[in-house]
C-alpha cells in the first residue's frame, strides 16, 4: 500500500491544480457536516455582502444624478431587465427578481473567485448543479402549471413531417433533460478550467528558465478569466431566460 502511494507520488503529476477547489471547514478540522461553515460558506457570504454593498448601500441615496456605485447597480438592473424582456418576452418580466438573483450571485461568485487565494464557489459542481436544477425544475413546473399537458407540445414539432415527429420528439426530450447537465457543467467547467490553467502556469513559474513565459501566460489567462467570469454569468442567465421562454410559450 505504502509503496503504491509512494510510487504514485513519484510518477503522478508534481502539481495538483485541483487542490485549490478543496472544501475546508473554516474553524478547526473535522468532517464537513451539512451545517459546517466552510471556505465555500465564507465566500458565498462575501458574495452576499457584495450584493448588499452594490445594490443596497450603493443606491441608498436614491440620487437622480447617480454616483458611480449607483450607476453600476442601475446598469446591472437595466442589463438583466432588458435581457429578460427581450428573450422571455413581457410575461417573463414577472420572474425578473429570480433571474436577477441568479445573475448577481454568479457574477459576484465568479469575480470574487478571481481574487488570488480566494475560493471560487462557482467552480463547485455541487453549486452549479443546484443552480441549474433550480432553473430546470422551476421552469418545468411553471410550464406544466401554465399550459397543463399542452406543455408537452414543446417536444412535438408540428412543422416536421408526421413520420419524423416521434424521432424528433425523442431527440427533443433527450435534449430537454440534458439541459441542466450542460447548463451546470458549462459554468463550473469554465471557471474550473480557468483557475486550473492559471495554477498550471504558476507551477511552471517555479523554474527560473520559463518563469517569464509562465508569468505572461498567467496574465493572459487571468485576462481571459475576467472575460469568462462575466460571459459565463451572462450565458447562464440568458439560457435561463431561453428556458423560461420555452415554458411560457411551449409551441414551436
Amino acid at each position, binding site marked *: 500500500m505504502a509503496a503504491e502511494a509512494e510510487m504514485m507520488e513519484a510518477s503522478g503529476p508534481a502539481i*495538483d491544480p485541483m487542490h485549490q477547489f478543496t472544501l475546508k471547514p473554516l474553524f478547526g478540522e473535522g468532517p464537513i457536516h451539512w451545517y459546517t461553515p466552510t471556505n465555500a460558506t465564507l465566500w458565498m457570504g462575501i458574495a452576499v455582502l457584495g450584493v448588499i454593498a452594490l445594490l443596497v448601500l450603493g443606491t441608498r441615496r436614491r440620487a437622480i444624478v447617480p454616483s458611480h456605485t449607483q450607476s453600476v447597480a442601475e446598469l446591472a438592473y437595466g442589463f438583466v431587465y432588458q435581457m429578460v424582456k427581450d428573450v422571455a418576452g413581457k410575461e417573463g418580466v414577472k420572474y425578473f427578481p429570480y433571474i436577477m438573483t441568479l445573475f448577481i450571485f454568479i457574477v459576484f461568485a465568479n469575480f470574487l473567485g478571481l481574487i488570488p487565494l480566494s475560493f471560487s464557489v462557482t467552480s463547485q459542481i455541487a453549486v452549479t448543479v443546484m443552480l441549474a436544477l433550480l432553473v430546470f425544475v422551476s421552469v418545468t413546473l411553471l410550464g406544466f402549471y401554465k399550459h397543463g399537458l399542452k406543455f408537452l407540445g414543446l417536444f412535438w414539432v408540428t412543422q416536421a413531417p408526421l413520420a419524423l415527429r416521434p424521432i424528433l420528439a425523442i431527440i427533443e426530450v433527450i435534449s430537454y433533460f440534458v439541459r441542466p447537465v450542460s447548463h451546470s457543467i458549462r459554468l463550473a467547467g469554465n471557471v474550473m478550467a480557468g483557475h486550473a490553467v492559471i495554477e498550471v502556469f504558476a507551477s511552471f513559474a517555479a523554474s527560473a528558465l520559463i518563469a517569464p513565459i509562465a508569468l505572461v501566460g498567467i496574465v493572459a489567462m487571468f485576462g481571459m478569466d475576467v472575460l469568462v467570469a462575466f460571459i459565463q454569468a451572462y450565458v447562464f442567465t440568458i439560457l435561463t431566460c431561453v428556458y423560461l421562454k420555452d415554458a411560457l410559450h411551449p409551441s414551436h
Partner: protein
Amino acid sequence: MTTPTTEAAGHAAEGMAEAAGHAAESAGGMPQLDFSTYPNQFFWLAVALVLIYLILSRVALPRIEAVLSERQGTITGDLAAAEELKQKAVEAEEAYNKALADARAEANRIVAETRAEIQAELDEAIARADAEIAAKSAESEQAIAEIRASSEKAIKDVARDVAKAIVASFGVKADARAITAAVTQRMKG
C-alpha cells in the same frame, strides 16, 4: 489508483495504510466530486440564494426601479417644462411683435391725425387770412373808389369852374347847365 479503492484499502488496513489513503485522497482527485460535501454546499447555497432573493425583492429592486422611474419622470417633466418655456418664449415674441405692430400703427395714426389737424388749422388760418385779405382789399378798394369819386367830383368842379372862367373870359355868359353837360360828356370820354 481510484480514490474509492485507496479509501477502501485505507479502511481495510491499519495505521500507516490509512494515513496513506488520506494522503492520496487529499493530494489527488477532484474535490468537486467529493459527494460528502454536497449537503453542506446545497445548504449554504440555498441560504445565500434566499438571502440575495430577499434583499433584491424587498429592498434593492424596488428602490432601483423607483429611482429609474423617478429619473424618467424628472426627465419627462423637465422636457415638458422646457417645451412650455419655449412655447412661452414664442408667445412672448408674438406679443412683442404684435405690440410693435400696434405701436407702429398707433404712431402712423397719430402722425396722420396730427397732419390732418395741422392741415385743418393751416386751412383755417389760410382761409382766415384770405378773408382778412379780401376784407382789407375791399376796404382799400372802397377807399380808392371814394377817393376816385371825390377826386372825380373835384376834377369836375375844377373843370366846370375852369370852363366857366374860360368861357367868361371870352365875354360870353356861359350857361351853367351846358357847361356841366359838356364837362360830364368830356370826362366820360
